[in-house]
Each structure stands twice: as structure tokens, then as C-alpha cells.
């Protein structure tokens, strides 16, 4: 199948049949996970959930307050794939309040399914979810593998 989760050094990435995701670091060292491609296989959670668990563990260990979840290059996500984001929010809910962090979804205005799909996820995740919609494609900012050293805040 070719689906896999791997830790390349301390970087986390996952690759499914038609999608991939990788945790990167923004300009100020903030964590960011970029999803690319199309999540449309019958059971993407098989490979996505272990990735989510690994990212969650790192964020908790580094006391992150937020991670950007970048959907700019995610063409589509079926409901089976969406369950992995529900699963992620469940992991956050199980944490003591002081350890919880936010999922900041970055959606593309041009990928119009994202707007309504993320509305529902916002309703489910409450204050643990925020949405930013960009009208352009991916912002031109350099990214590095994450963690890039030092606790996130």
C-alpha cells in the first residue's frame, strides 16, 4: 500500500496513497503541519491516527499552545479522513486544561469544501479550534523541520 508514518530524525511525516503530511517549523519556531494531496481512501485513519498520536505527544512534551494545520494544498478530505481530526480533538480534550493546545486550521478560499467542513469541526472542537482562511495559495515563508529546538509557547 505504501502508507507509512515515519520520524525522520525528529521530524514527523506521514504518507498515504494520495496524500502526505509533515510537521514543520515556521519562522518563529511555531509548529505547523502541512497536508497535501487527497485524503479519499476507505480507511485513512489507519495511517493518520498514529501520525496524530505522535504529533500530539510531541506537542504535549514541548508544551505547545498551538499548531497550525495547513490545508492549503489539501484538495479533498473524505469523512473517514475527517475522523482523524475528530480523534485529534479528542486527544486534546483528554488533557488537563492547562496542557491543552489549539488546532489553527489554515484553509484555502479556493478549496470551497473546506469552509463548511471546518465549520462543523469548529463546533465540535470549541475553543480548541480556530480557522484562518487565505485567499491566496501557500504564503511564501521559509519552513524548517520541527521541532527546531526550544520549547514552543
Amino acid at each position, binding site marked *: 500500500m505504501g502508507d507509512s508514518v515515519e520520524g525522520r530524525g525528529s521530524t514527523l511525516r506521514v504518507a498515504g496513497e*494520495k496524500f502526505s503530511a509533515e510537521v514543520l517549523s515556521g519562522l518563529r519556531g511555531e509548529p505547523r503541519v502541512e497536508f497535501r494531496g*487527497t485524503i*479519499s481512501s*476507505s*480507511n485513512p*485513519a489507519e495511517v493518520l*491516527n498514529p501520525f496524530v498520536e505522535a504529533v500530539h505527544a510531541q506537542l504535549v512534551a514541548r508544551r505547545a499552545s498551538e499548531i497550525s494545520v495547513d490545508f492549503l494544498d489539501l484538495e*479533498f478530505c*473524505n*469523512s*473517514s479522513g*475527517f*475522523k*482523524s481530526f*475528530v*480523534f485529534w480533538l*479528542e486527544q486534546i480534550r483528554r488533557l488537563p486544561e492547562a496542557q491543552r493546545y489549539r488546532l489553527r486550521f489554515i484553509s484555502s478560499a479556493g478549496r*470551497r*469544501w473546506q*469552509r*463548511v*467542513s471546518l*465549520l*462543523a469541526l*469548529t*463546533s*465540535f472542537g470549541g475553543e480548541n479550534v480556530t*480557522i484562518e482562511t487565505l485567499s491566496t495559495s501557500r504564503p511564501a515563508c521559509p519552513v524548517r523541520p520541527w521541532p527546531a529546538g526550544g520549547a514552543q509557547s
Partner: protein
Amino acid sequence: MAETSTTPVPARLSMRMRPPWPFIDDVRRFVETLGACTCGGEDRDAQVAMAVHELMQNALAHAAGDDVELDLEIDPGRDRIEITVTNPCSDEAYEQLGARVERMNREPDALAWYLRCMEELPGRSRGGLGLARLRFEAQLEVTLRRGRTGRVAVCAAGKVRAPPLEVGGFNG
């Protein structure tokens, strides 16, 4: 000089596939293009494409390699979208699906039902969100009927000009 008619023309698509899984993304993209030509503005084409994808994905899970049929009609004149996906289905699976759809339709608030499914379905379980998703996100009502011998037709229908969704200060 000939007059140009402005009467909206219905778009119809019928497909029979075996097995359609490798092509499900292509079908979704095609439906979105078709919808863009017939649904007008807003995001209706993307919502219809998503609904077709979810219905086909459900059908595939029960088709056991047999044919899956898709019938789609978008009629701006009647302000009506109808999607029907037909697949083989055992009596037991039909009863289970019928009970699920009945429970879903008893809840008048589509978002409330969708959120309940998110709460109740274990994150590690397979499937279960598709019908709730298309009912809320695409604003389509879901019904079932027993088709030809051993087949089930799942129908999703609603308005072409659906109102924008609003949830807790956000809008879609």
C-alpha cells in the same frame, strides 16, 4: 438574430462502475465541474461533489466488487438536486442502514446529529460520518429505497439554491 434562451437547463449524469474506487476522485472532480455550470454561485458545486463522493464511498463498502450506479440531476428550474447511488446490499445491511437513516432523520437539527456522531463514534472505528456530513454540509435530505433484487438506492435531495450555513458566528 436568434434569441438566446435564459431558461436554466437541467444537468443529468448517469454512471455505472465496477469497481469505481480508483476513479472516485475523478468522478468527484467531474461532478464539481458539472455543478459549477448548473448550480450558479456560492459553493453548491463543491457541496454536491462532496455528497456524491460520500455516497459512493458508502456504496463501495457494500458493493463487494459488483456494480455501483450513480444518478445525478441538478435542475435549477425546479431548484432541485437529486443524487441516487445504488449498490448491492444484503437484507441485514439494508435493515441496519435503514435504522441509521431513520435515527438521523428523527433529529431535525443536521448539525446536532453530525456532532453527536462525532462524539459517539470511536475515533479509531471505520466510517460512520458520511451521511451525517452530507446532510449537514450539503443540506441534503437522505432517504432509502429497496431497488432491484438485492440492491439499495440511497437518495440525497435538496435545493440548488441552498442558504449559506452559519454556525456560532462563523458562516459557510
